[in-house]
């Protein structure tokens, strides 16, 4: 095989997964990484921990300083890709240069969605919260005692609320949904987390939206006025799909990829938050913008780009999130029959039907959650395990003697 040239657009988990996979198969091919940010690869979900003081910019690097040189990558930071020319197999950069490719990976991630609200342009101090630069900017203006309005009570908005809590700000969250974390929790769990957050001095206006902004206050749809010094917009993100969409590649909300992380255009792969793929827990096509999936898609794409035949068909929605000391782990979809346990501090719900576990929600006691995740990911038939036992207590004890021997004693 002639030496291949790999070009990766993006520099986060999916890109890193691709690099590490390519280098397992191909030590010599050129790898070019192009990033519109100017930072060494870093973990985006850590920006809230950065504000909270639980990490710093050095420790939040996703890979060591020597990552690019160890893997013989050419890293082009601070460059935006303008377009792909699939006929010529090259991409055009924002400085007018071209970069040719044999195999291209689109790992462009997602961008914050800015809702079209009347008067938003009058707000001077408004921020989004998905990148290191966002976190730096927010941190530079944030002062003790300020009023912060966060638009959105989802993962990003609430992690932001936690991050900025170190500065003793007064935080109000507004969300159109009636519930906090409505994308990953059911009603009872949302209630429990909302109460926990209220104890941590976050105030909520749920089931409402902002009708109009003025420079320093928002007017809600019920005419409530909320004054603020700083506005954070965290209503959601949109996959960055335009590079592929512009050349007629198949897209929906995200770039459509198959189980080999191929797009509809030859030699162009995609991975991570910019993509839409099949959810193994529900069978539906979905954007599952989560770091583990991003890494594993990138890895799968990298394997296939470098000549292996690799399938990744086990992406499922899954989240591990801590908020003010309370841990939440969830996975899958919440349909079917329900097993439920709860006390004041802990919450467990398992959802199952047709002999399969479909999803779960754990709050508080999250130990061994991965055993539930594996049942969903592998589609384990529940009649092959002691389901009654595993509901109460996740463990390998619920599996058959043979399965235990295979897992622990290496006897297949």
């Amino acid at each position, binding site marked *: 095989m002639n030496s291949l040239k790999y070009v990766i657009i993006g520099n986060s988990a999916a890109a890193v997964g691709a690099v590490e996979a390519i280098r397992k198969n191909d030590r010599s091919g050129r790898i070019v990484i192009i990033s519109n940010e100017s930072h060494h690869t870093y973990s985006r979900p850590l920006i809230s*921990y950065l504000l909270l003081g639980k990490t710093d910019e050095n420790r939040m690097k996703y890979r060591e300083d020597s990552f690019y040189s160890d893997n013989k990558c050419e890293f082009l930071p601070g460059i935006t890709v303008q377009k792909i020319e699939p006929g010529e197999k090259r991409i055009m950069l924002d400085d007018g240069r071209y970069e040719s490719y044999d195999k291209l990976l689109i790992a462009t991630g997602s961008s914050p969605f800015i809702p079209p609200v009347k008067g938003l342009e009058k707000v001077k101090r408004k921020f989004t919260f998905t990148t290191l630069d966002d976190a730096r900017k927010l941190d530079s203006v944030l002062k003790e005692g300020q009023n912060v309005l966060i638009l959105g009570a989802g993962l990003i908005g609430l992690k932001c609320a936690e991050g900025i809590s170190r500065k003793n700000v007064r935080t109000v969250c507004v969300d159109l949904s009636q519930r906090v974390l409505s994308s990953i929790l059911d009603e009872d769990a949302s209630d429990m987390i909302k109460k926990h957050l209220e104890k941590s001095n976050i105030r909520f206006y749920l089931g409402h939206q902002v009708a109009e902004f003025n420079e320093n206050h928002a007017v809600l749809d019920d005419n409530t006025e909320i004054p603020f010094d700083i506005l954070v917009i965290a209503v959601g993100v949109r996959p960055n799909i335009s590079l592929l969409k512009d050349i007629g590649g198949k897209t929906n909300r995200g770039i459509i990829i198959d189980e080999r992380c191929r797009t509809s255009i030859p030699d162009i792969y995609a991975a991570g938050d910019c993509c839409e793929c099949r959810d193994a827990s529900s069978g539906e096509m979905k954007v599952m913008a989560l*770091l*583990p999936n991003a890494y594993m898609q990138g890895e799968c794409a990298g394997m296939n780009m470098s000549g292996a035949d690799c399938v990744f068909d086990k992406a499922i929605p899954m989240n*591990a999130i801590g908020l003010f000391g309370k841990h939440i782990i969830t996975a899958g979809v919440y349909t079917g029959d329900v097993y439920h346990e709860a006390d004041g501090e802990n919450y467990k719900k398992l959802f199952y039907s047709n002999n399969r576990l479909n999803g779960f929600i754990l709050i508080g006691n*999250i*130990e061994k959650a991965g055993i539930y995740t594996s049942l969903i990911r592998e589609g384990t038939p529940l009649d092959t395990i002691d389901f009654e*036992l595993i509901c109460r207590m996740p463990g390998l004890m619920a599996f058959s003697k043979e399965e235990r021997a295979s*897992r*622990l004693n*290496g006897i297949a």
Partner: protein
Amino acid sequence: MKRVYVNEKWCLGCHLCEYYCAFASTNEKDMARALKDIRIKPRIRIEEKDGISFAVSCRHCDEPLCVKGCITGALTKKDGVITINRDKCIGCYTCILSCPYGAVSPSDDGAVQKCELCIKTARGTPKCVEGCPNGAIVFEERGE
């Protein structure tokens, strides 16, 4: 590659592996003194029910979901051993969400903990293996 293997047929359910594991992460010379009055948080755990018992610790998987899913890069695999950089770990528990063995657990200082085959503390044989009185936990090379 040497691995820890567990044969439930020989497990007495004595929990000594858990004590040896907890002891391995202290700097004390005497086990009784090291563990006196503390609630141990071992990296190897016994599961038991109806007369069956066995120890579970990290399998150091060939396709480690905890490493692949780690959001900080704190979990890495080198020379067959998965280790945790506790300085980088922020305790998000994505690895606990990912591990199909339930072999990663929270610790008292915020970072997660898991079996690292005693490479940071002891030489040669992991302490749980050394301490198992019935040969139910072994550390050996097997053809794969």
